[in-house]
């Protein structure tokens, strides 16, 4: 079922489909899909709205190996309804996470690419978000790392941002964005003076990969290639934090310290300046190598709090 062979060194994560990402991320030929498109497990709700369905309901789930180690993988297709969670889409992710409790793979990888909950099946979608977070907590408590990879066009928004917050570790690229309320939602509710969703630079400064990495919301910054995300995933699996009371209390303390230190900032560049970045204005244009050097000098980039 895999698409034509592609070179993971060159394949853009942002441009690739969910299926291409999975096929190129895993060891060659190792991916086996559960509930693939030929099973036609599709949304029971979309036809009521006269909307087209997808044979996989916008998510690819299965097992694979990564550097020879068994992993379970879920990849959202951000171009189908913004990668949003519907009933079947959510159930496939939750089923995979719960199966991981029995299988005990080396890790579960979630390739986020989602705007959040699908409005046409919102109740089922919201329930799926909650159940996915619960399943991740159970998995982490059992010692299975859950790694989120974020670099798709839909980012990780809404409930997807919440689920990302419960993962053991996150890797993000320049194009990736992590938040809960999206730019348009904030603008609609608070006005363009509060947040201008058409200001792309503002959106990426506030929710983009570099900002999340600098404040410690993401644990690795990856180039926009499948190979870079694969390297990041392998690295993050090896250094997943324990999931215990001490970790959670430390996260709480760090989040409180973050809001005390940066709560009055009006722009991400102010936060970066307070973090000790010499030339905050230069951050958005930095290459990955230069940015990694900058992040290495920022203390907040190295803690576990989202």
């Amino acid at each position: 079922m895999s698409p034509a062979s592609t070179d993971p060194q060159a394949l853009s994560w942002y441009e690739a489909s969910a299926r291409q990402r999975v096929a190129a991320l895993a060891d060659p030929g190792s991916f086996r899909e559960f509930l693939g498109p030929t099973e036609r497990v599709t949304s029971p709700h979309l036809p009521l709205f006269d909307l087209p369905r997808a044979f996989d309901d916008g998510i690819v789930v299965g097992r694979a190996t990564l550097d020879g180690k068994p992993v379970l993988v879920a990849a959202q297709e951000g171009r189908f309804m913004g990668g949003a969670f519907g009933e079947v889409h959510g159930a496939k992710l939750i089923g995979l996470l719960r199966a991981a409790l029995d299988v005990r793979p080396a890790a579960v990888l979630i390739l986020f690419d989602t705007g959040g909950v699908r409005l046409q099946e919102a109740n089922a979608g919201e329930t799926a978000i909650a159940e996915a977070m619960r399943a991740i907590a159970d998995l982490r408590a059992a010692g299975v790392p859950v790694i989120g990879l974020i670099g798709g066009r839909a980012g990780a928004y809404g409930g997807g941002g919440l689920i990302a917050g419960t993962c053991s570790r996150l890797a993000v690229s320049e194009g990736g964005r992590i938040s809960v309320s999206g730019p348009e939602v904030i603008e609609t509710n608070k006005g363009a003076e509060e947040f201008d969703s058409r200001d792309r630079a503002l959106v990426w400064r506030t929710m983009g990969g570099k900002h999340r990495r600098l404040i410690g919301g993401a644990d690795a910054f990856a180039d926009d290639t499948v190979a870079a995300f694969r390297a990041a995933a392998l690295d993050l699996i090896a250094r997943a934090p324990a999931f215990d009371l001490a970790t959670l209390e430390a996260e709480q303390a760090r989040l409180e310290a973050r809001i005390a230190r940066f709560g009055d900032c009006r722009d991400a560049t102010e936060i970066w300046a307070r973090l000790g970045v010499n030339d905050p204005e230069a951050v958005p244009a930095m290459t990955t190598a230069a940015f990694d050097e900058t992040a290495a000098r920022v203390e907040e980039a190295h803690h576990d709090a989202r």
Partner: protein
Amino acid sequence: MESLTFRHTTRKPLPGAVQSAITGVVASGNLEVLLERVLPPDACEVSIETPVTGYAAVWEAVVADFVARAQPGGLRISINDGGARPDTVSLRLLQGARLMEA
């Protein structure tokens, strides 16, 4: 939604042994094409679900052209359309046939 099904007889089976393949994504101006090698070697069936109604004649012409060019005997082809233009449909069908030949 409009559901269309076209059945054709081909002169030969599609080469290769791949049992199923999928290409494309259901997005605006795009479509997904699922191909399965489940029919007799001289038969091809293409079924389409599209939210854009009233273009049955165009679909019929695009599918007939594809069948004539690719001779996709043995394939059941299922399409979820997101409002793709005819040239995109042609491209995806040929991509799908190529994946099945691998």
